[in-house]
């Protein structure tokens, strides 16, 4: 496998630093929480839980600050967060007691063998599972602390949590109309505004120069890689905070894959990205954190560096070793 390009490493390092400060913040929150035990605001109640978590952790004599921080982050500042999530398709349980926190402005990769629930979990974040008949959910899925399966408007949720699918799925209309579909759906009608959004989204997806003269052409005429980047641009145009990517490169050639990976790293500066991938090198190349799935459970979730260097669970190790040979 080729070495990651130096700029990529540089960006990763920058984001590693960001993450460290995120961890530090969480520690601070935990400390503040202890001092705020008597406060009665809603935040205080949350903080109390954090404090309790911290206390139990302390009781368990684990002094590691990052451990406390991990407990804290799950409650306070994770972008997406699941708690004891069970998901059923009819009688089949696809996810078992999933607890996961996804920090903002980072790339989280889901890895694991086929049919282990990666895509299923991904699709709970924008409720695409609603389309599957007999799908039932227990437990909590939170976006910025709000219950996704509560009384949140599904369409608004999907505007905030964009998705890129396994196979490029541009609509049978022009490039322009494809990208303008999201903004139009959410009420933007003025031509000037739309033009601006289309251009910005195409630039963000590094597609503008290739397609600026073909905006009125049918999107089905583009190459596979272009189609997938168009789908990313289309998702960006809706103005999301989170971008879910379901094996976005599995149908693409290596060159297009490299394109998309670069794009994902760049986008992580402004968006929270969750990516499902079968390709472990891809996870290692681009993600900050990696979650390993097996049979509907998360075996472990940690920084990518740790998962790939010294995983905490032997099953993770087996899987990674097996793949790396």
């Amino acid at each position, binding site marked *: 496998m080729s070495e990651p390009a130096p700029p990529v490493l540089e960006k990763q390092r920058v984001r590693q630093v960001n993450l460290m400060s995120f961890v530090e913040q969480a520690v601070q929150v935990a400390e503040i929480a202890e001092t705020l035990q008597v406060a009665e605001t809603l935040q205080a109640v949350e903080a109390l839980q954090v404090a309790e978590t911290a206390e139990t952790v302390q009781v368990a004599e684990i002094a590691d600050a990052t451990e406390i921080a991990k407990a804290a982050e799950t409650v306070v500042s994770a972008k997406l967060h699941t708690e004891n999530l069970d998901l059923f398709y009819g009688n089949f349980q696809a996810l078992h007691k999933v607890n996961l926190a996804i920090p903002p402005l980072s790339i989280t990769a889901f890895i694991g063998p086929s049919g282990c629930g990666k895509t299923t979990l991904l699709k709970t974040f924008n409720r695409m599972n609603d*389309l599957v008949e007999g799908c039932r959910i227990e437990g909590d899925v939170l976006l910025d602390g709000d219950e996704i399966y509560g009384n949140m408007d599904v369409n*608004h949720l*999907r505007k905030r949590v*964009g998705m890129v*699918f396994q196979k490029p*799925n541009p*609509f049978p209309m022009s490039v322009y109309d494809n990208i303008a*579909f*999201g903004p139009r759906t959410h009420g933007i009608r003025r031509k000037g505004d739309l033009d601006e959004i289309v251009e910005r989204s195409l630039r963000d997806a590094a597609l503008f120069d290739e397609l600026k003269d073909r905006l009125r052409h049918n999107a089905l005429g583009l190459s596979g890689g272009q189609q997938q980047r168009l*789908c990313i641009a289309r998702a960006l145009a809706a103005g999301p905070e989170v971008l879910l990517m379901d094996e976005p490169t599995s149908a693409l050639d290596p060159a297009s894959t490299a394109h998309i990976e670069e794009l994902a790293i760049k986008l992580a500066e402004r968006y929270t990205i969750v990516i499902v991938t079968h390709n472990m090198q891809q996870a290692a190349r681009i993600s900050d954190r990696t979650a390993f799935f097996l049979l509907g459970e998360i075996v472990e979730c940690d920084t990518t560096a740790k998962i790939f260097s010294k995983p905490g669970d032997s099953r993770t190790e087996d899987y990674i070793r097996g793949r790396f040979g």
Partner: protein
Amino acid sequence: MRLIHDGASGPTALKPAPATAGAATTAGAAGAAAAGAAVRRTARVRRRATHRSVRDHILHALPCLAALLTAALIGFLIIYILVMGIPHISPDLFSITYNSVNVSLMPALINTVLMTLLALAFAVPIGLGGAIFLAEYARRGNRLVGLIRIAADTLAGVPSIVYGLFGLLFFVTMLGWRMSLLAGACTLAIMILPLIISTAEEALRAVPDAWREGSFGLGAGRLRTVGRILLPSALPGILAGVILGIGRIVGESAALIYTAGTATSLPTSLFDSTRTLSVHMYVLASEGLHLEKTYATAVVLLLLVLLINTASVVLARRLSRKVRNV
């Protein structure tokens, strides 16, 4: 037994012979590219073909003869009507008012258009709405869906005379619309409803799921997904169904005789009796007074219906090509 005999009687010099004469013909045709041996081989294949049992020959001849007869029937029917009718097409056949001298089909033709538009105005929104419900909204195992399917299947099989009788009892008599354009159009609308529903549902189901997911994933609601993504993509299929429906309306007579009546003049309101071209044709044929004009009318009706059905086939082809390319 026969096969053993076949194998034994074939010259041993023959190439590893395909086991049957039928297959040998195809294999022979394919192998004929090897130019030099082609002629000799064909001869051998033919000789082998004579070894086919009489039974095989009969079994081969039967379908061929049947197809020939079918083709001849179709050709004869259409050509006969055209040959007998075209010489009698004259300008006065198209005068704007009907009288017993010119036997004009023009009022009936205009009525047919009116009747078609009116019937479609009822049937298309309802049929399309029903199809959207079945394809996009109803969950599997929904009891209503089963009921609707049974209803649509039943409607599809009901003979047109029964529709006519129902129209007479319900629209003409009970609602008091008399024999009229409106009563006829409503009757026809019910008649073509199952056709519209089934073709539109099929067209909607042919739209790839990836587009649905893409649209939902961008936060579009179901209604917007249907309106902006699914209906435009399914349009050719839906149109093909509608055109097929038009064909049925134009060709229909039994359902109209007692609902729209047989008046020869143009209607001045929705509640005027009118005759469509098919009914006109029936009246002419059963009166038997104007044989030549009847032939000419038959030509016009036949061409009209053939045109409509061809349009439908062409549209449906275009749809299937589009779906295949995605």
